[in-house]
């Protein structure tokens, strides 16, 4: 039995603790906002925030998150920084198919929670853990800048 906080609610699962977290989140927990992409830690689609750190949920065993705080895209709107990042992506229409975006929103939210004004290099390094196939990169970069700008304006 693994017990953890999922978007603020205490959650427990009896699945085999060695199973990758992504399957537990998507199936028993029904957080369908978490995407499965490659299962090998390469594409970033399944990224969630665990105790404040963006991590690919295909590379985490379920038992390793015992007692942790897990934050998924479904909770973005209720988070002061996540909501700004989400709105910036909507305002910039920063997607084509949108499949890669959920993971990207997680990584950027985790980054901007740590530092409000990360360097360009830091942003690229963060986004480089994600793959986008449609070529929405330019929009994603614009949306990131917009989110930073708004957060800084808010102070």
């Amino acid at each position, binding site marked *: 039995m693994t017990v953890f906080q999922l978007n603020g609610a205490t959650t427990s699962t009896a699945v*085999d603790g060695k199973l990758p977290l992504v399957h537990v989140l998507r*199936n028993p927990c029904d957080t369908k906002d978490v995407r499965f*992409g490659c*299962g090998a830690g390469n594409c970033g689609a399944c990224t969630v925030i665990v105790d404040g750190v963006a991590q690919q949920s295909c590379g985490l065993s379920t038992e390793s998150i015992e007692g942790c705080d897990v934050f998924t895209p479904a909770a973005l709107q209720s988070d002061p920084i996540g909501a700004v990042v989400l709105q910036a992506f909507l305002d910039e229409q920063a*997607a084509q*198919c949108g*499949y890669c975006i959920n993971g990207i929103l997680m990584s950027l939210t985790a980054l901007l929670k740590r530092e409000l004004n990360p360097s360009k290099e830091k942003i690229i390094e963060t986004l480089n853990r994600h793959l986008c*196939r*449609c070529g929405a990169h330019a*929009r994603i970069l614009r949306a990131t800048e917009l989110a930073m700008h708004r957060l800084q304006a808010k102070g």
Partner: protein
Amino acid sequence: MATGIPTSIQTAPLLKQWVQLLADGRFQIYSGKVELGQGISAALVKVACEELCIHPGQVDLVAGHTALSPDEGYTAGSLSIEAGATALRHACIYMRLLFAIQAAEHLAVNLEDLTLDQGMFGALQSKEKIGFHALAKDTNYALIRVDTPLDQSRDVKKLIQQPDEEFIRFDLKGKFTGAGFVHDMVRSNMLHARILRGPHAEARARLVDAAHLRSFEGVTKLVIQGDFIALLGPDEGMLLRAYEKAYATIEWQLPNLPAFQEIETLLTSLPSVDEKVVAQGKALPSSQRLTRRYSKPYIAHASIGLACALAEPMRHSANKAGLTVYTHSQGVFKLRQEIAAALGISVDMLDVVHSPGAGCYGHNGADDVALDAAFLAHHLQVPVRVQWTRQDEMSVSPLGSASLIELSAGVNDQGRIADWQAQVWSHSHLNRPGWLPGNNLLGAWALDPKAPRPVQKDQVLPTGGGLRNIIPYYDLPALDVMHHFVPEGPLRVSALRSLGGFANTFAIESFMDELAESATVDPLEFRLRHLTDTRAKHVLQATADAANWNSRGEGLNGHGYGIAFGRYKNHAGYCAVVVQIEVGESIRVQQVWCTVDAGRIVHRDGLLNQIEGGLLQAISWTLKESVTWGPAGITSNCWDTYSILGFDEIPQLHIDLVDAMDQPSIGAGEVAAGPLAAAIANAAHHALGVRPRHLPLTPDRLLQLIHSQD
């Protein structure tokens, strides 16, 4: 064919097939063109709102549903705006004009004095207003036909228009924060399934120990039928673990694959069907002649999400067990026909419903996985969700065909092209379900009785598959095109964004630079003097001006500029590109200027998004991508072995859209790829003095070129 009637309207001639009035006062619009991530849904809603003067909140869109929506073929070929939006617009205008006559009568005013706002007809001299829903009560709505030409000589006076910003993608917020894809659909008693497929589309398991496969924890059902092997279980995580163990126990038998080698040697060594497809004009005398070969490798769709489908049994009528299949296919009607054929059931027993998948750039595994799910749900009579693996996605899914192009041209002393000859070696670029007799669904080749793989055939000009865009858009006194159609190759191939247009435009536009150089003419000037179409000239000149082309300098210092042009399919959108690159260990594209003329712009941000995405995807194809294989199958089967463009490689984009409001909308989703590739190759020549002719332009290739010059 009736003139002035959009093709899709001729197939679906009734108003109710395009627009229905909902009981709650809203409008349901229908389209055969589905949301593949290209943003077409927003454009279709905008068209309906513009023509009916309604608000996007008043509209529901149903697209790609075999029981509900019109059959508009595939969502492919850059035709969703050109054909799909045009048909919907026709139906909506027809509806407005028809209802305006009744509204004028009802309000006792002249039709020309009518206003229309939020779907309500009114007039200055009338206090009363009346909407479509109220007017429809006096009509036999179900019988209204829209398949006659529009007469807009009498129309309502005032149309209230909403700003473009109102028409954002309504699907994105839900996708970003919740379920939004076919992958996310569940049913209470649903089984997950994984299909055991080898490292190649035609790999077959040699020996299968059913008892052993069944013994893995997580597998509650095993289905073996012919060469089709499926593991099923209620828990996806456990099933995937079982799948990995099961996969390791299987030895795969592969067809004899030609060795992995340079595309030029591969394609010229395979049997081909040779046909002269164009021979026109008379060559002028020339003072010099150039002959060059260019190639493009096999490219993977490589979507971020995996192919997925859900199928569930349903009762269509009292006694017939039917199926509903949820799929991210590009063509639900053709898919329905092929699934029905493979299962030996009537199409009436199947509903095929589009549900979003991850990015679609052509014929990928979406159709195949739909048959996988349909077969299992039909066989087991329970809902089945099938998702492919990353390896399946990169190796058994169709891939984009490779091409070799040889171009030869004479140039005269006046710096004009005197004759042009092209030869193309390539496979089919179109193996979609329903395209040819036989069955093009992967499962149909494995399930008994096995369906034959269709005899390979390519699409002919003017649209063309491997020959798409092989005819230069330039004025040439003589043109000769030879097609060496290579029916069989090492890999399973089909349509990938722009088909042969990518390789052919890359070749033509690289060759134009080589010819310009041999004639010692500026590459822009050389193109302009061979063009008569003013729209083509405009996009080229505008892009060159934006990039400050004339100040680009001599190059040869690791920094370079390149220019290229293309008109997709020679009858769709116009696109010119200038790139600025820097070459260190590899080519880095720093800036891209691009001008596109797609006629009347329907949805500006959607068009911009398509151009941005087309350019960036093409940078990835041009610099990085190539499918690799060995005797044991495809080796570029994951992101470690098939690398795509990253966020650290994104140039600045400067895109200008020509707003040709008086021109019909023409397809633009695929315009950018070919010109972009050639612009990079041309820039590499400007930067280094060497001429890359074979894609991808990897560091290894560049080094080889530089050394071969020494």
